[in-house]
């Protein structure tokens, strides 16, 4: 146990170093003036220059610069956006919850849909159902997310008018942002139109969540199916059946538990992709999150924002991967002894 923790911590340290060093190196990789890339201030005056050069230690060794960078990171002094002059720290952490919210709901959604379908398709009782689910998931897997988004909006918003097309909440409702998670914000706010606002928020969530969930759902269906299939072939399942347990009991006690373990791992592996797809979804549905910010920033060559956004998104991805790893470890007694290096 200790060893496991030790290994994970050292990995975490390595990763933190990796991410921050990478973010730091962006200062140099981005075109343009170094000090502007660091501060986000475009027209640096003479007297200001000296002050900033001292603060950012740009005339000292790379190591010192990097350490200064770490210190600033820690203090929340992430510079300002080259274009708007807003504090990047503020900007990012205001938008982060929206991204997390979208990704999380999509994940939950795909879990709810994919696990039963995956299990169903793994049970060999309905070969046609299996084929159907598989083909559908293959199609879903092959659809570029933006194209899927266009088709879905065209059908469900434009033609049928069931759901709104973009945004998180109708602007009619004025909900003070407390946590940044819209559903939570609505619940803790004291506005007279709580209920409508809540259902409106759900309506807004529907299409983006569905579109974003398409990818993880198909991945999950396939991985659930595969792992359930292999688990159901295992001797211990046969042994359990021979003990006289019913199909459902076998599934519940042994099948799902073992079958879903690799699924957790798959999720960990694909979480990063989910986050990137969330970024694309944000762009498509004008979802005010980190992804939209980042893409905008790339359009506008707003290097400070790009750097901050990338830092946070990669940190998010890593944290999630480690989280899934820990989850995996909790559920799989074997992982505790064999979890080498891999995150």
């Amino acid at each position, binding site marked *: 146990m200790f060893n496991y923790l030790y290994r994970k911590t050292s990995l975490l340290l390595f990763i933190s170093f990796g991410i921050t060093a990478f973010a730091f190196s962006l200062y140099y990789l981005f075109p343009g003036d170094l000090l502007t890339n660091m501060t986000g201030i475009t027209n640096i005056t003479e007297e200001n220059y000296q002050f900033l050069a001292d603060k950012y230690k740009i005339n000292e060794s790379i190591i010192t610069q990097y350490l200064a960078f770490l210190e600033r990171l820690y203090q929340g002094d992430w510079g300002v956006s080259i*274009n708007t002059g807003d504090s990047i720290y503020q900007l990012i952490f205001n938008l982060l919850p929206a991204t997390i919210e979208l990704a999380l709901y999509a994940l939950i959604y795909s879990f709810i849909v994919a696990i039963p379908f995956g299990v169903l398709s793994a049970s060999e009782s309905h070969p046609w159902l299996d084929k159907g689910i598989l083909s559908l998931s293959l199609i879903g897997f092959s659809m570029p997310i933006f194209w899927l988004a266009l088709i879905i909006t065209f059908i469900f918003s434009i033609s049928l008018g069931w*759901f709104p097309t973009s945004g998180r909440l109708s*602007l009619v409702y004025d909900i003070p942002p407390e946590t940044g998670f819209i559903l939570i914000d609505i619940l803790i706010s004291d506005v007279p139109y709580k209920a*409508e606002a809540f259902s409106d928020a759900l309506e807004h969530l529907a299409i983006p969540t569905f579109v974003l969930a398409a990818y993880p759902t198909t991945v999950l269906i396939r991985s659930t199916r595969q792992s359930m299939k292999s688990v159901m072939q295992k001797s211990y399942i046969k042994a359990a059946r021979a003990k006289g347990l019913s199909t459902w009991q076998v599934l519940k006690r042994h099948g799902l538990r073992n079958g879903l373990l690799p699924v957790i791992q798959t999720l960990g592996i694909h979480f990063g992709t989910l986050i990137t797809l969330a970024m694309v979804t944000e762009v498509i549905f004008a979802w005010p999150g980190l992804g939209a910010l980042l893409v905008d920033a790339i359009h506008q060559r707003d290097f400070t924002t790009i750097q901050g956004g990338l830092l946070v998104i990669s940190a998010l991805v890593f944290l999630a991967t480690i989280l899934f790893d820990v989850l995996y470890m909790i559920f799989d007694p074997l992982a505790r002894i064999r979890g080498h290096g891999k995150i």
Partner: protein
Amino acid sequence: QPKNETNLLANTLLYCSEGSPDLFNPQLVTSGTTIDAVSNQLYNRLVKINPQTGMVESDLARTVIISEDKMRYRFYLRAGVEFHTTDYFTPTRTLNSEDVAFSFARVFHSNHPYNKVGGGFYPFFDGVEFAQLVEQIIVVDDLTIEFRLTDPQASFLANMATDFAIILSAEYAEQLSEQGLEENIDHYPIGTGPYKYEHYVTDRYIRYKKHENYWASQPNFEQVIFDITPNNSNRVAKLLTKECDILGYPGASDVQYLENKNGIDIVEASSMNVSYWAFNTSEPPFDNPMVRKALSYIVDRDAIIDAVYRNHAEPASSLLPPNNWAYKKIDRNLDFSIEKAKAMLTEAGYPDGFDMDIWAMPVQRVYNPNAGKMAEILQQNLSLIGVNANIVTYDWGTFRKKLAQGEHDSVLIGWLADNSDPDNFFRPLLSCAAAFSGSNRSAWCNDEFDSKILQALSITEPEQRKAFYQEAENILFEQVPLVPIAHAVRYRVNRDNISGVELNPYGGISFENAKKHAKKTDKTTRAKEGKK
């Protein structure tokens, strides 16, 4: 409770705008987006233009008395006009002459404490050389104020009625000075308009609340929301899904599409505008008139009007649109001709062409619904004469900022008149003064041209003025600092339960009289004038 919801919806006006305002004071900008978002909602002017008749009429000023020599304008203000009360400012007094004096002094007096706040550039006022025109502003009494001019300039009152000449609160400015937060005057606005500022999230939305103590008739909405949706088709989608009531700047193809949709009104509104292709004449090779002239031949106006405007525009044969009184149809032989362009380019010393950038606005404007497409057409034609064009766009804010810094080679942009005076097309776009203040995108300064348009200003006789403007246009078409491309038809698109939205032919949109009906308005008011 469903009751609540209907109330909330009925009391909210949702406007899907195409971009974010730069700030909340039109004095400092020329951008239509800012004007739309700010001028008529938050502020009033002394006088305004009636959108129907085009005549100047009273606004905050009850009456205007003009002296015989047309050099002194005395404005009598309304009494009891309340400023906005917000969480950052509570007014203690109503509007008086001080406020008017402050609002204009800020623009005119370079040593005014607020003059440099926000950069110190007032593009519109600088463009029409207002500071030189107004000799003095005299506070006669609490509710009377007099403007003394240096010249009896014909366009003064029209300029006073533009969306730029708004009235700020002097009391608020004082409060800000005390707090040392002068910058806030343009970002946390206080005005007298029908709606007041509540909240703004950059690139997402603006929320205005009703101004309860509005001096004119009570506004019809509890809140007005600007839903900032730069993407054209997203805006249309929002209109269709009732996420917005009014659509700002429909794309040309969207008009065509929306015409066949139920529940949507499309109204053609009169508009004086021009879209043009401006060359940065301070940079080679565009400092060479021959090159500019050559490039002007590759502009295929018919193709552009077909593809970009979807025929909702007229080809521009002059800078002035045909509905301006000073317009005169002259055949300038502007035909699209690759041969001529090629020949001229060779003559100018560029037989093999060159590389250039075309900056295309990222947003839809009245005068140009899709600059990107237009740029692609130009790019295609340019390639025929060996010029390799690269299309550049940034988001709107960055775009304008970089444009003002003159980083462009050439730009596709346009102009929407601020008033009916032809001068509004010439001086802001091409005068030497504007070359420095920024709205002259060609950075072009021609003394002869300048003197022509100044001469045109100094006289009042329309026919004489017209003649001067024609001469100016002749110079323009010789020198080609910019190539006029089209005069677009402006549309107002809204859901059919909305009425009373006013589109100023010279500027922004006004929701002062807008109403939302529980049911559709009756047929007669939503005649689809714009339909062909």
